């Protein structure tokens, strides 16, 4: 009788740590990885849980060809500061989801709503279409807007907004 196949014993994940791999910044602003005797001139860093757990389980992948997985980073917080920063810069390159910090106005017109707000990436305006697809409620206080272009904007904590802002936002979430 062979052993029952379970998730745990069959799929072994290669974990990349600061000890078993070397990361280096490249001229063009990317990061190269040396791991298990192979050199990858540019690696892409993909979050496995970009919304629920951005810092854990980061898949390090080849940037060309079949985009094969080189290995996984289990927890970025366990990396030395300088390497973690280097990787985080790469992650920020790949992921662009501005966090809304202040809502200036929300104007309804023609079945769309135009938001004017401050984000951690600077001030911007974006338009969402009416209907439920544009707003995802991750939790009671965390919301993601998707605008007409597919850009996403995050409200990390609804309770941090003023009452006035909350009242405005209430209509859309």
């Amino acid at each position, binding site marked *: 009788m062979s052993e029952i196949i379970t998730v745990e014993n069959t799929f072994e994940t290669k974990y990349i740590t600061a000890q078993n791999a070397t990361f280096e910044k490249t001229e063009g602003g990317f990061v190269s990885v040396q791991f298990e005797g192979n050199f990858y001139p540019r690696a892409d860093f993909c979050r496995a849980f970009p919304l629920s757990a951005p810092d854990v389980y980061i898949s390090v992948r080849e940037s060309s060809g079949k985009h094969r997985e080189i290995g996984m980073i289990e927890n970025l917080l366990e990396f030395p500061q300088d390497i973690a920063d280097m990787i985080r810069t790469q992650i920020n390159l790949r992921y662009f989801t*501005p966090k809304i910090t202040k809502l200036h106005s929300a104007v309804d017109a023609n079945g769309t709503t135009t938001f004017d707000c401050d984000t951690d990436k600077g001030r911007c305006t974006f338009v969402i279409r009416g209907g439920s697809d544009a707003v995802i409620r991750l939790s009671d206080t965390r919301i993601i807007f998707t605008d007409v272009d597919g850009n996403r904007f995050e409200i990390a904590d609804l309770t941090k907004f003023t009452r006035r802002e909350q009242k405005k936002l209430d209509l859309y979430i």
Partner: protein
Amino acid sequence: MNLHKRLPSDMLGLLPISDKGLIDYCIPFDLGQKGDYQLGYIVVAQGNLFVLQDGKAKKIPLSSLASIKYEAMVGCGAITALDDSGAPYIIARASLRHSERFSEFVTALKRDAAGWQEQIAGRGKEKYCDDCGTLLIGGACPKCRKTSVRFNRFYDLCKPYILRLLLISLMMVGVTFCALYHQNIQKILIDDYLRSGKGTVADVLPFFAIMIIITALQIGCTIGKNVLSVRLGSLMSMDLRSKLFKKIQSLSMSYIGSRPTGELMHRITFDTNAVRDFMERCFGNMFSNLITMVGAVFCMFAINWKLAVLVIIFTPAIIIMSRMFHKRIHRMFWAQGRKGDSMKSRLQDVISGIRVVKSFGCEGREAEKFNEQSNELARINSRNECFWAIFFPIITLVMGLGVHFATYFGGIEVLKDNMTVGTLQQFIAYAAMFYGPMRWMAHLPRMIMRMLNSLDRMYEILDEEPDIKDAPNPKECKGNGEVEFKNVTFGYDPGEPVLENINFTVKSGEMVGLVGASGVGKSTLINLLMRLYDVDSGSITIDGVDLREISNADLHRQIGVVLQDTVMFSGTIGANIRYARPDATRQQVIAAAKMANAHDFICRLPDGYDTYITERGGNVSGGERQRIAIARAILANPKLLILDEATSALDTESEELVQQAIERLTGGRTTFAIAHRLSTLRHADRIIVLNDHKVAEVGTHDQLLEKKGIYYSLINAQSKLHRIKGDNED
């Protein structure tokens, strides 16, 4: 998309070239080096690419950009290239707002570098207004476009119905006149006969009669107006619907494929309904209310201008209050609707997936989640209804205040003997006539805008030029069905060619199998042959005539198609077989069904050829549907036959029946067959193997096996798979 955006003057200064008129491309982007929002422009001029941002210009020679590409990321995208040492670097990054333009730009650069002559406009549509940055609706800016243009459209829409409109207006004037005059009669009755003490019962009687007649006239006019408005609305929306339907059918697949089916349905059903609704409920009332209000104001001023001013002065305040109230109500009930929707979709999820829920034993958790949503909905519902119950009477009171003021001040006038009781009664009635439609009129602008937006959305489709057009002088397609692909290149999205430089000839009567991994472009090749899309470059000819020179109707008469997922239309089996040739006799239908191995099973059905099948064909099996589709193709008698995975979804027994039918069908016809199960291509005269967007191998089954290339390995992989399947069955 526009790849020649206007460069703002502050950026123009950064551009280090002397003749600023020589700009080849100019596109904006919005992310800076650190990942923050920062506007910049990419400009291509005089053989160089310039990146303008942050008060600086970076120059990159085009000759070093052979490796330029667009990389889609999460929520953003970047144009990257390799430097001299082969290391990748980023040229510019932008949010998704600019991503489509980015990828079209990269494609354009590549086309230029390859020296292609044909200028192919990118398929992307501009989303924002060039001048003010507002989101376009129906391809036009709701802010910049003059409202007069939009009203003109409405006028054009109304023009054919001008007589009806005149009649409706006449009715409206009639209604107003009756309403106003009615009050005058009452005043005379009160002042001259009732209050003066001179009147007798005999005097009152004629008044009674006159008032009845006026009321009857008013009702008659109102009914006429309403009926005419409803008819007009239905006519106009019917007109629009059929125009839209015709247009959508004539538009190319690339247009239809680029939008969700639901959206087009929405245009045909919802937007035309919006116009009908407007004509029925607003258009007629709009003018009659307006005339009534103006008439009432006029009469009030004629009676006592000071009093009239007092009554009218509150109008703006009341309009503002009413709009605020309704905005609030609208928002509250909108939230309620959304909560209701999400509960409904949850319910649908669980009920349609009940087998999964039960098999994993998750009923308890689902019940809990549902309860939560249900409670929330109940809470919002009761809050909203309470608000409505409390504030609606209050707002009604406020709206009525004008009338009460009129009564108060008018009463004083009467006591001072400046006014008769009859005149006061008349005045109060006019005030009520003025205020009555006010609440309704306050929302008029919104209703008009909504209708104009619906019109915009519809005209976006009506104004669309089909990109697959019939040639002005179509050539006739004579011959036996010889097909040639010459240097054909095509991609659905710019920058991502699905087929590259395809060349082959299929002789008349030959059966060709198309083989390759999924996504390699087999179905695309077929789509091109059917001219659902036009090739980006190169040409496809049938009997020496370019597809683009044959009229679409003629082309499709030559082609018969049997697809994997057979499309049946709701109707009888007979009607489905006759689809391409509605005038076929019963005898021909039976002959076709017999050839397709379908006759026997059809006869066994209780209703035979008159069996009603539904759109999804639920009451006949997959193999049976497939044979009906083959009968349809046989009856159409096409020169060219396309089989797209025709047998892949069938079990072995019905596959054999279908295979037999297909062999009869393909006899003597030029046939293109796509199949995953390679055994079905045994009889093909030649097999074309596609790999990496190109033709990789061509030859007969045996030749390709000998060659030990891609086809050989595919066959091997499949026979291994069959062996495993065989083991399981044993």
